[in-house]
């Protein structure tokens, strides 16, 4: 899957979980850039992304992410 397509789908997941139609995420977006992206929301985002792409992350992978771009790298490494 093209990276921009993955990014669009991840953006849609953010919109759904955060219930905010105006969210636009990018490669360098971090939790501090998005209102309401707290630790509990982060869990919901990870679960929703795992479900959507039918993949599983490890806790080590999640802890290594510094921004959305690194999250998408990880999704791509799963063969998506």
């Amino acid at each position: 899957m093209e990276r921009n397509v993955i990014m669009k789908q991840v953006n849609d997941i953010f919109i759904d979980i955060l219930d905010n139609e105006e969210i636009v995420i990018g490669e360098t977006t971090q939790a501090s850039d998005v209102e309401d992206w707290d630790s509990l929301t982060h869990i919901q985002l990870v679960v929703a992304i795992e479900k959507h792409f039918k993949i599983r992350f490890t806790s080590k992978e999640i802890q290594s992410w510094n921004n959305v771009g690194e999250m998408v790298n990880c999704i791509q490494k799963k063969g998506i």
Partner: protein
Amino acid sequence: MIFKLDNKFDECFTVSNEMYTGFIQIFKDKNPLHTNEQFAIDNGFKGMVMHGNILTGFLSYFIGECLPVKNVIIHSQEIQFKNAVYLNDELQFHATVTGIYDSVNAVEFRYDFKNREEKIVAKGKFQIGLLQ
């Protein structure tokens, strides 16, 4: 992870008068559907309909007290009400693990409540987190 995909759990609950009156006393929902027998019958029910959220109380009890671990927190829950529940109804509760998310220590369940006629009165899903 203590839970495995497709793990199943069963409990039995009865909607007692104590729960019914306690719910009204605490939350003040005295809608006639719940408190006026004739009103409920006139609207197509067999009698006063119990508050649907008594069932979410059962759900809370199941998650907090019946699971094999106590270090749990509810992340989310959904419930759909399918049929009316009446006073003293005995409900069979079934829950199945439908998702394990090790990366964030989260577990998803689907559940339903059935009455003695085997009709589903409510169903839904919930997600819990395992506290570390």
